[in-house]
């Protein structure tokens, strides 16, 4: 489903942040990438999602391969991202947040897209907030909306960037339920970048650890 081979990423002339990272994620699995801050977790996520190019190696998502030095744009949309800060669009209501990209990027009919958005909101139990603006939502609702927004582009894999950072234990558990709900109800392949081993242990199947030497698989279910 998603394969990374010998990925090398550096900023300017500095030492590489990622030096030859390789891993593979199976379809339908929820995989955690663990690591301390500063080891390049976020950089890895930005490369995977097509937000940044890279210097060496390659990334394959659902048969599409991008090599070092090539434009990463083909990855966008194939990889959905749930940002740490979610980045819902504050000027749009929930439905419009989720409908924007399918309508603008894919040129799909708005009424058809909206029907799909509402169905997906229902799947993740947030259909009631469809007409609200993001600021009126709870943290958990916002996260589910951000997931629906990413899923609307029909990505092959969904990436989460530190979804539990700065949350208290009960909210962390809610994030865990959300990730499991997505897996059970949509069958989506998910990769969660986190620094929280206990949370990864409780809610993810495969676990990789990223450190200076590279990426090591520590659990395989």
């Amino acid at each position, binding site marked *: 489903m998603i394969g990374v081979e010998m990925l090398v990423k550096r900023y300017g002339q500095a030492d590489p942040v990622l030096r030859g990272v390789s891993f593979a994620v199976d379809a339908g699995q929820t995989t955690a990438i663990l690591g301390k801050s500063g080891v390049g977790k976020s950089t890895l996520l930005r490369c995977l*999602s*097509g*937000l940044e190019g890279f210097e060496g190696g390659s990334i394959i998502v659902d048969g599409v391969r991008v090599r070092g030095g090539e434009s990463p744009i083909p990855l*966008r*949309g194939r*990889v*959905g*991202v749930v*940002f740490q*800060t*979610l*980045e*819902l*669009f*504050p*000027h749009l*209501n929930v439905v419009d947040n989720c409908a*924007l*990209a399918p309508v*603008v*990027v*894919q040129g799909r009919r708005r009424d058809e897209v909206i029907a799909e958005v509402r169905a997906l909101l229902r799947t993740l139990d947030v259909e009631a907030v469809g007409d*609200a*603006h*993001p*600021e*009126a939502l709870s*943290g958990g609702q*916002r*996260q589910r909306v*951000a997931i629906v*927004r*990413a899923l609307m*582009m029909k990505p092959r894999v969904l990436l989460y960037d530190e979804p539990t950072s*700065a*949350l208290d234990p009960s909210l962390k558990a809610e994030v865990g339920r959300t990730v499991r709900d997505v897996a059970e109800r949509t069958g989506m392949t998910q990769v969660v970048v986190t620094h929280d081993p206990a949370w990864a242990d409780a809610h993810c199947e495969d676990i990789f650890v990223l450190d200076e030497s590279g990426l090591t698989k520590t659990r395989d279910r």
Partner: protein
Amino acid sequence: MLWAVAVGPAARADDSVDAGIVDAEAKADDDGVEVDLEALPTLERIKARGELWWGADAHGGAPYVFQDATDPGKLIGFEVDLANAIAGRLGVRARMVQGPWDKLLDLLQRKDFDLAMNGIEESDDKRATVNLSKPYYVSAQKLTVKANDDHTPRSLDDVKDLPIGCLPGSMAQRMLDGRGADTRAYDVQDDIYRDIVLGRTRGALADEPIAHYYGDIDHRLRTLPGSYGELRYVIAYRLADTALRDAVQAALTDLTNDGTLRTIYERWGMWNAETAAFLGDPDPTPRTVATGFEAWRAAVGEQPPFLQRVLHRYPAMMPMFAHAALLTLAVSLLAMVLAVTLGLVLATVRAFGPRPLRVVSVAYVELFRGTPLLVQLTMIYFGLPELGVTLSPFAAGVVALGLNYAAAESENYRAGLLSVPVGQIDAARALGLSTMQALRHVVMPQAARVSLPPMTNDFIALLKDSSLVSVVALTELTKVYGILGNSTRDHLGLGVVVAIWYLVIGLPFVMLARRVERRLGRGRSRTGAGSRR
């Protein structure tokens, strides 16, 4: 239709309804003809057009060219009579074109009118750039002081170090400077005399007709008996227009010989020994009552009660103010459209463009923000023709205001763009939106919330700054206020009227902006917490 306002003359001296004001309908008819006329020599163009366009400044006031205080839509004055008489001899009609007095010779070069006639003093330095006629009126400078005051100067020999008022660039100013006076130059005649009464100055030195019309009508002032210097009013033509000069000169000779000229000067109380001698008339004593002067004295010597002005005078001025307000609004709206469009491009380029374009954007903003609008406007209107680009007054006003305000708008929008977190662009890109799509659908709508309030503010500022376009011969609200104020000496009451006009045309936009702000602000708290957790 708006652009038709821009082209050519701003007023017709013979039209009692819209004198002093641009007439869009009338001008629209001219435009088609004007292009064909362009190639003709000036005199033939005047005949083909059926109109002599003469440049003057109604802001200068009595007795030259001014609005009739008892019938404010009507343009009167001895030069109006003179222009009509000359035009009659040429077999055409006269049309007065409004322009600022100290810019009349520049406007003449720009071909905004055929000749300039507005108390222009004969002087050698003018001959380098324009053709001057023989004088049509001769007089001297008169010193006016406060009446019943023993400490006022008694002659021009006493003015050293004293504050004395005069018109800028006039012979009076040169004479005062030469005698070491503390010279105070005023743009408006009425102000010169008002300040003597108020004690701000100790006297005024001005052309005899001005002293007569603004000094002698006030019992608190006294014009001293002596005369200083010899002052000759001449008509200015473009250097090439010798045929026109000769034709007008022939007309003036005819008007002298048949007594028309003398009749005009007597009517306005201006017939004097100097002019009589110059014109070869043996009789310097007026034979008839100066009806023009008496009417002026009766109308402005004592202001009518305020209520009477509100009920009669101000309503009569409505058409002039309404025309001017429309022009102000049109210039401002079009300038704002230009400013917003260009400002948006500049801000976007600066925030997201490649480095060379960013440098251009920064340079533009600093250049236009850092230099006075008046300088830019003057360069565009009077400077660009040297490079072969001659804009109409309206277009020059719109372009200058638009280019200037684009710099301010650009900074507004940049502030708005910077207020949108970079994560929002990441989110849009991750969803597959292109940079342009992200800007259009995600960044701009959020930036607008930040940029709109200062933008409304800028529009109101622009509306007021549009008063500067009167230097390029556009008769907008502030100019009409100046003209009517000087013609009626009613500065306070008319000030209130013009203030109301500005508020009336500005308020709808303020209200519209508030509505849009509320719409944009929907679903957003005051803290702008957005989607942060």
